[in-house]
């Protein structure tokens, strides 16, 4: 019985995995496919994308036209369940509400976590991204390099399905043959942006997203992923055949009932469950890792949200994959006389070096795109093309005034009209109404372009989380308090984004709505890009890091952290693909150590 209650759990498992998102899903998948018996604990409810996804529902069928509210901040149809910037009864604290120092924390309480709604952008870190300190003297190097992780990027791409192309640009790795699916064709605004950006020396190449532009190769991929494991190959082949390719409609943020994009719930968990090796308990709010007298982890304590009872589960190995901050919270709350500052925290680094992505956006209006004929531009839901960081040489030579790069996510087109389509046009229409207003909405519809910079933040001593001394959530679990600070590197980078986007829009003959040249104002507050990583960073030295290169905590041999908490740097590349690659690598290591009876 794959979905189990605390009562029907087995007395002991090989591995407990806390969390069911990208990290937990990947960890459990790898372990189960290779024969380990795993208990997955998810704080949220069970979630079934096949029946719960609003695929073609239109804004008129939703309250408030589907516009965001505190209960559904990314809109009514966003996949997130019981989450958002606030989770009822589960507060978090911060030291300031100011733009410059605040941190917002997006959580979901559902099976599959935030993978159900994420943007699916799946970029590999490049060689520089694992050794940033060696390159510019700032932040931390990873204890591994690109070559260590590359085979796992290959595996993840083969498993989940990622479209893209190999362009051979600097620090923008290519994938081996057969790993990537073909990229979607660009829409009109993509061509225009690419043409005009090129005139400024800015490249635009096919994006990489975890969306099936065609069916996965269910013959070859399972053999490449699980050599010599006939059972795993058979299960995976069947799962791959049951995923339909993209039908070129409906926003990915709603999730996908035909399983055309990656969600843990549609890609990682079904094959893992099919092995018979995975038990999942939902509504299980883990708050503590338990320790035996020998200093080894014995399991975890959790609150069953359906009964309110405190429960315990046991295993040989405990893996935290609850999201960077939640995993740090569990470690910090696992206090005992031996570990008064939290578990695996002899370095004092648990909760430290939180990073998000530097984000800054500009909108432009482009006359060349006005009044075009009717076109279906739903495409792959955007990111047909993107711009990787292109100024490595200038940056290394110190010409930019900030140390790390950013990529550009851009888009446009005749998207499904909604509450925003005819709103806020006063800057263009001069406030008209009536028949002229209707004509203007027609004229401007589809003529807007959107640029989002997504850049690397350098870890610093003033961005961290800790346990609040007094506040507890509704379960009685002490909550996190966040501290946040950007450096001049990030602020200058955000200002550079704004200037660059303005130049591109002007090169298109368009008009930027607003360019913010003050970096402090241009930068989105911490956490808002929802790429938070760090808090239990990996390293080569137990005095300055929480885990080793295998995501194994230095202090407790059978305790691992496989989510974004272990990132010692946060490249401009969106973190999810790397989270999965690192988790797969860690799971392989756990399997090997278990086979050798070392765990």
């Amino acid at each position, binding site marked *: 019985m794959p979905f189990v209650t605390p009562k029907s759990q087995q007395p002991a498992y090989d591995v407990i995995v806390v969390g069911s998102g990208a990290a937990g899903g990947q960890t459990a998948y790898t372990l189960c496919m290779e024969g380990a018996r795993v208990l997955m604990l998810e704080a949220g409810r069970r979630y079934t994308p096949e029946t719960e*996804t609003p695929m073609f529902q239109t*804004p008129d*069928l939703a*309250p*408030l*036209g*589907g*516009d965001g509210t*505190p*209960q*559904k*901040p*990314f*809109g*009514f149809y966003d996949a997130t369940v019981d*989450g*958002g*910037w*606030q989770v009822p009864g589960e*507060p978090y*604290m911060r030291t300031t509400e100011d733009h410059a120092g605040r941190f917002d924390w997006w959580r979901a309480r559902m099976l599959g976590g935030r993978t159900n*709604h*994420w*943007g699916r952008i799946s970029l590999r870190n490049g060689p520089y991204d694992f050794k940033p300190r060696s390159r510019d003297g700032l932040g931390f190097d990873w204890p591994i390099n690109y070559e260590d992780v590359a085979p796992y990027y290959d595996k993840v791409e083969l498993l989940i399905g990622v479209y893209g192309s190999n362009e051979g640009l600097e620090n923008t790795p290519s994938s081996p043959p057969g790993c990537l699916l073909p990229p*979607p064709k*660009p*829409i009109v605004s*993509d*061509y*225009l942006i690419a043409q005009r950006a090129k005139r400024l020396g800015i490249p635009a190449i096919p994006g990489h997203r975890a969306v099936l532009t065609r069916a996965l190769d269910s013959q070859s991929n399972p053999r490449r992923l699980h050599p010599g494991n006939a059972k795993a190959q058979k299960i995976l082949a069947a799962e791959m055949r049951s995923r339909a390719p993209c039908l070129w*409609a409906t*926003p990915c*943020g709603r999730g996908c009932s035909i399983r055309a994009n990656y969600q843990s719930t549609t890609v990682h968990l079904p094959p893992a469950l099919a092995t018979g090796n995975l038990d999942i308990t939902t509504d299980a709010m883990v708050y503590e890792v338990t320790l035996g007298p020998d200093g080894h982890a014995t399991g975890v304590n959790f609150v069953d949200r359906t009964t309110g009872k405190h429960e315990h589960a046991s295993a040989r190995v405990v893996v935290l994959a609850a999201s960077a901050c939640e995993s740090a919270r569990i470690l910090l709350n696992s206090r005992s006389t031996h570990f008064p500052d939290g578990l695996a925290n002899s370095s004092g680094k648990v909760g430290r070096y939180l990073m998000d992505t530097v984000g800054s*956006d500009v909108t432009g209006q482009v006359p060349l795109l006005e009044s075009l004929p009717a*076109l279906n531009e*739903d495409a*792959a*839901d*955007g990111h047909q093309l993107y711009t990787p960081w292109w100024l490595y040489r200038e940056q290394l030579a110190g010409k930019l005034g900030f140390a790390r790069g950013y990529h550009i*996510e851009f*888009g446009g087109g005749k*998207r499904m*009209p*909604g*509450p*925003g*389509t*005819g*709103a806020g046009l*006063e800057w263009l229409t001069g*406030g*008209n*109404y*009536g*028949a002229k207003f209707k004509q203007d*909405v027609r004229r401007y519809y589809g003529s*807007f372009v*959107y640029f989002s910079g997504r850049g690397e933040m350098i870890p610093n001593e003033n961005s961290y989380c800790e346990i609040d001394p007094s506040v507890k959530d509704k379960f009685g679990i002490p909550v996190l308090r966040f501290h946040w600070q950007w450096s001049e590197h990030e602020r200058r980078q955000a200002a550079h984004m704004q200037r660059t986007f303005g130049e591109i829009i002007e090169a298109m003959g368009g008009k930027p*709505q607003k360019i913010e040249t003050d970096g402090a104002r241009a930068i989105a507050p911490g956490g808002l*890009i929802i790429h938070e990583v760090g808090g239990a960073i990996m390293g080569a030295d137990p005095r300055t890091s929480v885990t080793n290169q295998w995501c194994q905590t230095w202090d407790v041999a059978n305790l691992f952290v496989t989510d974004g908490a272990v990132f010692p740097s946060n490249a401009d590349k969106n973190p999810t693909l790397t989270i999965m690659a690192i988790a797969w690598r860690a799971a392989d290591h756990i399997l090997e150590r278990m086979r050798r009876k070392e765990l």
Partner: protein
Amino acid sequence: MDRRTTLKWMLAASAAWPAWRAVAGQAAPGAALLRPPAAPGYGPDPDLVTPHKRGEFWPLTLSAAQRQLAAVLSDLIIPADEHSPSASAVGVVDFIDEWVSAPYPTQQRDRPIVLDGFAWLDAEGARREGKGFAQLDAATQGAICDSVCDTARATPERRAAASFFALYRDLTAAAFYSSPAGRKDLGYIGNVPLTSFDGAPPELLKKLNLL
């Protein structure tokens, strides 16, 4: 594009839909962090698949007279033309009633702006012609709208009324272009399953000098 951009596209295909709408629900300041959301609303886990009706999650609260005024004003902003019906014909009044009746912070901030704006329109009608706004002739209604339709040109004493008009125009447009008639008006032909996506038509790209 990431999910924030997706969101922005979904909710703000135009640019100036205020940023605070796109990040609705960020943690409220200070002690509010410790409190659950005050009003029930549709909750954090609503049924997304079943179509919802206006008034299903919270009662509509506008009076008959306010709804009548809402319809008149909406139709001044989006009248019928050869492409599509008027705003009131596609349910815009219900949308606006749902909006100003909703328990969420954005909507509760908008509610007094809309209700005060309605009252101002009636007072202005009474001042000019001794009638409520809905009972005025079209020329007088138009003259009143002309005096407040552009926040940049509004006189200081009309600034509040102009802010109301800008908000009301946004809400009317939000409702109208969310409707099937609004989608048709704009020639939107997506949201249908396709077996393949062919990208931009080559002849159009050639015409735009993009090939």
